[in-house]
């Protein structure tokens, strides 16, 4: 309770269904800062759920509450404090510098001094290992560096709830894990709720505090990684029995390995 000064949970939804995917109602409540992963097979409605939660799509039934209010009716001035959003395919202009790209996240801080803005951008750039590229333009950096800068724009906003749609796409395995670890560290350090969609069940198992597992045409599940990264829910959701083993270092987590030729077909 002491985690949350306001009486409202950071994010909650009741009986939520959407137009595409997410046909069975979902009821969840996230009172405390955490890293929440949305997982599920292609077409199960991960992106739809994320967009419903942040108010970009209208629910078919049910309601979403961000800090106790409907995100769709949140006044524009307050919106950047309540939510921040990184779409699956973020857009940019090749002429922006990375500094500019990240500073877009400070748009709402009209009263911040120039010095405060500069130091925030610098801080974010170095947290993402992008400090040497501060004045590089979008067309002069690699896909992975650009992806990290986009995540930086969403994080610098310091919104109560941060929504990231596949922030790990197009990154190699090492960068994926480093970025997810950073996202987790920041959401705990800055006491915010971060909701991400991801395909990598192993990272979901090792890093997410809570998971929502979506099943095409079936009921969504909400639980801890320990509950959901297990044979029964994954078989229902993906239509294929997973091969799970205990992680050699994090022994209370299970990870998925390919089943090998004998399990397919």
């Amino acid at each position, binding site marked *: 309770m002491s985690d949350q000064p306001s009486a409202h949970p950071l994010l909650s939804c009741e009986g939520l269904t959407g137009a595409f995917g997410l046909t069975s109602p979902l009821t969840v409540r996230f009172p405390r800062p955490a890293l929440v992963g949305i997982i599920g097979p292609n077409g199960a409605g991960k992106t739809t759920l994320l967009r419903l939660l*942040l108010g*970009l799509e*209208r629910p078919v039934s049910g309601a979403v509450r961000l800090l106790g209010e409907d995100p769709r009716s949140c006044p*524009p*001035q*307050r*919106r*950047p404090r309540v*939510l*921040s*959003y*990184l*779409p699956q395919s*973020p*857009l*940019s*202009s*090749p*002429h*922006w*510098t990375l*500094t*500019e790209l990240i*500073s*877009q*996240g*400070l*748009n*709402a801080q009209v009263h911040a001094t*120039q010095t405060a*803005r*500069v130091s925030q*951008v*610098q801080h974010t*750039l170095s947290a993402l290992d992008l*400090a*040497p*590229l*501060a*004045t*590089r*333009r979008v*067309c*002069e950096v690699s896909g992975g560096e650009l992806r990290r800068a986009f995540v930086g724009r969403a994080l610098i*906003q310091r919104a109560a709830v941060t929504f990231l749609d596949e922030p790990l796409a197009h990154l190699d395995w090492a960068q994926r894990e480093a970025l997810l670890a950073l996202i987790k560290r920041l959401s705990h350090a800055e006491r915010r709720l971060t909701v991400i969609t991801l395909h990598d069940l192993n990272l979901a198992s090792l890093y997410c505090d809570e998971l929502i597992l979506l099943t095409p045409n079936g009921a969504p599940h909400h639980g801890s990684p320990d509950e959901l990264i297990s044979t029964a829910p994954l078989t229902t959701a993906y239509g294929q029995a997973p091969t799970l083993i205990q992680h050699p270092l994090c022994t209370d987590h299970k990870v998925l390995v390919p089943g090998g030729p004998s399990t397919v077909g």
Partner: protein
Amino acid sequence: MAQISHQTQAPTTTLRGDPLAGEGHRGLLWFGLGLGVLALLAGLTLGRAELSARELLNALWHGPWGSEPPCLIIWWLRLPQTLTALIAGAALGASGAALQSLFRNPLADPYLLGVSSGGGLGAALAFSSGVITSVGLWTLPMSSFVGALLSCALIYTWAWRSNGVSLEQLILVGVALNLLLSALLTLTLSLSEAQLGGVWRWLLGRVDGLSWVELAWLASASALGTLTLVKQRASLWLFEAGEEVAWSLGVEVERVKRQTLWATALTVGGVVAFCGVIGFVGLMAPHFVRPRIRGSSTLLIPYSALYGGVGLALCEAVGRLSPRPLPIGVITGCLGGFTFLWVIHRQRSTRDLI
């Protein structure tokens, strides 16, 4: 090597000044102002009548009330012509930049919203129905201005959906309505028996022959619209990140769309009413500016206004070198076309244009 030396200095220097604007644009500012002075000088000195430097200075000193030929030439022909080009070019440049940002489309130009064809149809209808001679000189600008605003209103209404205006719809409806209105314009001109040389000349664009009163009207419409766009520059910049991201960053997306469209219709409608359809300036100016304001992207609209104005004034000055009067659209088309091809050629290595 370069990136390491940037490490400590860079963010501080790129974030000073206007909303997160950098210092890199200073050169662009002085270059643009220098070109502006050059355009003004060229506008005052070039022309069919040969004036000595003495006559020129004398005429400038005596002001617009003198009655000697140099005075009349400077104050009633050359200066209004150069000022018209500066104002119209600035309006077209700012509108082009705003629409390119709003639609995230490098091909967007100020005439995207049917303002040119709507204005043209209005003018042609006024001409062919004969009201032009009966009501007077103001009928042409008024009818084309009304035509321009009506076509913009039509596009805006057509693209309206339950939850706001869809930008994709706006672009598609704009293209379709432009084609439709152009066909109607050609139809009107073909069926009309009146003398239509005036309409054709106007359709190709002109900056000459405006009285100071007309110039004042043009300047008011342009200033109002351009300042609205300049005020929106930060929000329009965020539109380049996509409408939904702009929404999440606190931009009032529907208000920005509405104000941008009306400011553009007002500005470009005013330009079309007095100067006809001057092509290429609104498309070119932002493309020239965008790669050169490294780190100060929020200044795209003011700089596009500066370079649009200066560019059109230079084109106009070049046009006076021709032995016969040329429609300014021909000059902007030729110079703009070549410059644009050159810009595209140079940018091939750095991917797309927006």
